[in-house]
């Protein structure tokens, strides 16, 4: 099998040598950027915690929401490193399980936004004309509203639930990607390799898929990484006002909301989930920032 594959693999590597070299340089630059490494580590830590939550805590049922009222409001201790909440549930377990909701809202919102925004942007930028006009005016409509307000309105109309909150936030975010991709496409369209492709009769659809989209993915990726943090924050804000995940499903924003009531006497309730939101969204922001610097050869070299 390997002998069969080897020639293909070698050819693949040969053809993409310069590209791979580029990735290697990026990786090295990344390794030198301690802030980026730390951010990635924090993100991976939380993702790991969310994925393996049932095995990481002795109280998985409490993490999922089962009350244990006899132990309510215990301050942090060895049994409960981050204390217990109003129904006696281990806060650490809640945060681990809450990560499942909060992180997935972050990733899913951005994935949906990219999935809607990128093709629309590419179409608008590539074809121009009335299509461009229509799509751009549509984005204007969405961007005219403050995004959190629009998300709240959509979620309130759909009814409070995790899925609806996600859809609501994603619906307010895609226009940014449309604009980003359109701007990139506009300049790519005039580049000679695109003209060449069109010149030899490649179909329009293929030009967009093979020549335009791969070249706009870097800025989209950077934007997406930075946005995950904000998406988590927005998701938390939605849960905070009761429009997100419904209790007893754990969610960081919801935990902060609940903890707020008890803040004076039991500050750990709001503080730890708040810290989780803070760390994760900050990390995604810094990571996105680093990726942008690294992906651009000019800033990468300047940073050396």
């Amino acid at each position, binding site marked *: 099998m390997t002998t069969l594959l080897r020639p293909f693999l070698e050819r693949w590597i040969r053809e993409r040598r310069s590209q791979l070299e580029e990735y290697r340089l990026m990786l090295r630059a990344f390794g030198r950027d301690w802030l980026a490494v730390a951010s990635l580590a924090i993100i991976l830590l939380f993702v790991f915690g969310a994925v393996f939550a049932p095995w990481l805590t002795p109280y998985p049922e409490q993490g999922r*929401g089962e*009350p244990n009222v006899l132990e309510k409001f215990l301050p942090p201790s060895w049994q409960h490193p981050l204390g217990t909440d*109003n129904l006696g549930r281990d806060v650490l377990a809640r945060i681990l399980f809450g990560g499942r909701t909060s992180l997935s809202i972050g990733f899913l919102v951005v994935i949906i936004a990219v999935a809607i925004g990128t093709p629309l942007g590419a179409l608008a930028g590539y074809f121009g004309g009335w299509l461009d006009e229509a799509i751009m005016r549509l984005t204007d409509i969405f961007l005219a509203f403050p995004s959190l307000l629009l998300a709240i309105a959509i979620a309130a109309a759909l009814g409070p639930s995790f899925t609806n909150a996600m859809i609501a936030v994603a619906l307010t975010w895609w226009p940014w990607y449309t604009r980003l991709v359109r701007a990139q496409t506009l300049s790519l369209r005039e580049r000679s390799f695109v003209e060449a492709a069109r010149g030899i009769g490649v179909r329009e659809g293929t030009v967009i898929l093979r020549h335009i989209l791969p070249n706009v993915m870097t800025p989209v990726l950077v934007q997406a990484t930075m946005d995950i943090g904000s998406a988590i924050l927005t998701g938390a804000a939605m849960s*905070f006002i009761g429009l997100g995940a*419904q209790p007893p499903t754990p969610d960081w924003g919801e935990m902060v909301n609940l903890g*707020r009531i008890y803040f004076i006497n039991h500050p750990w309730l709001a*503080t730890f989930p708040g810290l989780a939101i803070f760390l994760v969204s900050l990390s995604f922001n810094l990571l996105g920032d680093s990726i*942008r*610097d690294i992906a651009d050869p000019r800033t990468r070299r300047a940073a050396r």
Partner: protein
Amino acid sequence: MSRRSLSALLALTALTLLLSLVGCRPSTPPPAAGEMPAPPKENVAVYAHPTSFPDIDPSISYSNDSAVVSNLYETLVWYNPPMQPQLLRPGLAERWESNADATEWTFYLRKGVKFHDGTDLNAQAVKYSIERTINMGMGASYIWDPVEEITVVDDFTVRFQLKYPAPLDLIAASGYGSWIFSPACVEAQGEKASKWFNEGHDCGSGPYTIESYERGRRLVITRFDDYWGGWKPGQFNKVVFEVVEDPTVRQQMIEAGTADVTYDLPRENLAALDARPDVVVYTNPAFQNLVGLLNVRKPPLDNKLVRQAISYAFPYDRFIQTVVSGYAVQSHGPVPLGMWGHSEKLFQYTYDLDKARELLAQAGYPNGGFKLVMTHVAGDLDERQVGEVWKAELAKLGIDLEVRGMSWEAQWDLGKSDPMQAQDIFVMYWWPDYVSPYSFLYSMFHCEEETLFNLGYYCNPRYDELIDRGNELSGSNRAEAERLFIEAQQILVDEAVSLFFYDLVNTHAVRADIKGYVDNPAYPHVVFFYELSR
């Protein structure tokens, strides 16, 4: 690198936002402290009130506005606080009587009572007030439904002819819709009277009159010098109702002494608050309970055995002792503790999962295997906690409880829709308009053609007969009425038509130097400042 700092800035903004979500509110200075030029403390009381006052028109007021209205206006009769030998005491009426079958009531008015506009109280004013309330048809006006005609017998005697027997003395003591006001004062405003009231005016005869009103923020009342009860030194000349929605801020205010009375504080903090030498926490029955009406029309809760089974699956004691920190009492049926018609003899379901399993098996659901939807008001933490705790217990029986927090309007709309499509369990609080068991027993369990508050869709002619008869007798033979009401409640409990989670207790935090404070659950969260002194 400038991009990096920009992003760090963004992240910092995020942090600030987050922290403002988390913890900045408690550090906000109490509004009373900063904004008011410290008034002479000895004669001003401050009530830090958790809600604003929706409508202070005495004919409309049907909500927390009662806290204000009760200090401006008076009723013919007052309902006494619990544990007093008499249920009622005279208000603007010195005495009253009814005929044998309680269809004709005569009230003899107090003489020498002046309204705030200087006019005198007379029978005409009583007729005018009640008729205005009835004709406007808003708020609690429906409590006057039995009234056929109001007759002015002489200046100080007024007679009510009723369409059917009713306890008019209890109705006249209601904290909603029974206020008496000056006809001249209201007429002077013509059509716009309601608007004028809500701009901060009143036409009452009570000990206080409105001095200023900033809607949604602050209302100041000042003493009415010609009040018929007279004034003694030490009584409050002025009362400030400060609207403070945040419980932690209210707690800080009462601790700092910038508020004299408040309520609705985090229960966990009450014991510590009470231990302070300068604050007293009063705990009293609340005439209010938390119920979970079961949908008796829709399977599987149309089966009495299933209803009983889930009634056995709520850990009443544990919930009350821990989650609500003991500030509640498990209910005996739907009429709450401290009210007439409440009976300690009624059966209570206890937490007994074995019994529940047995009943489920009898009903044909040995391993549960069905799903129930419980709706509640999303913002209410206690209702939510009831749901979360019950969900865990029902899961042990193989029943999947979906706890659905909704806005009250949405919850109620769903409840009023087709019972077969509606929720299985409707969790809500109930409190009376006027203090009669009938308010609880009729509204939530009497047959309804179109659903209003009978949100479990229960209908039993025998039960209806008992409570209707009880209501007719409430005015003339209260002991017999009470017996009938208790018999009717026994039916509800046997049939397990609702979860009777607990009766609430009211807690009010009052500064220790305030004298004369007595809570009266017939007028929820009303503080009669005239009775207080410092």
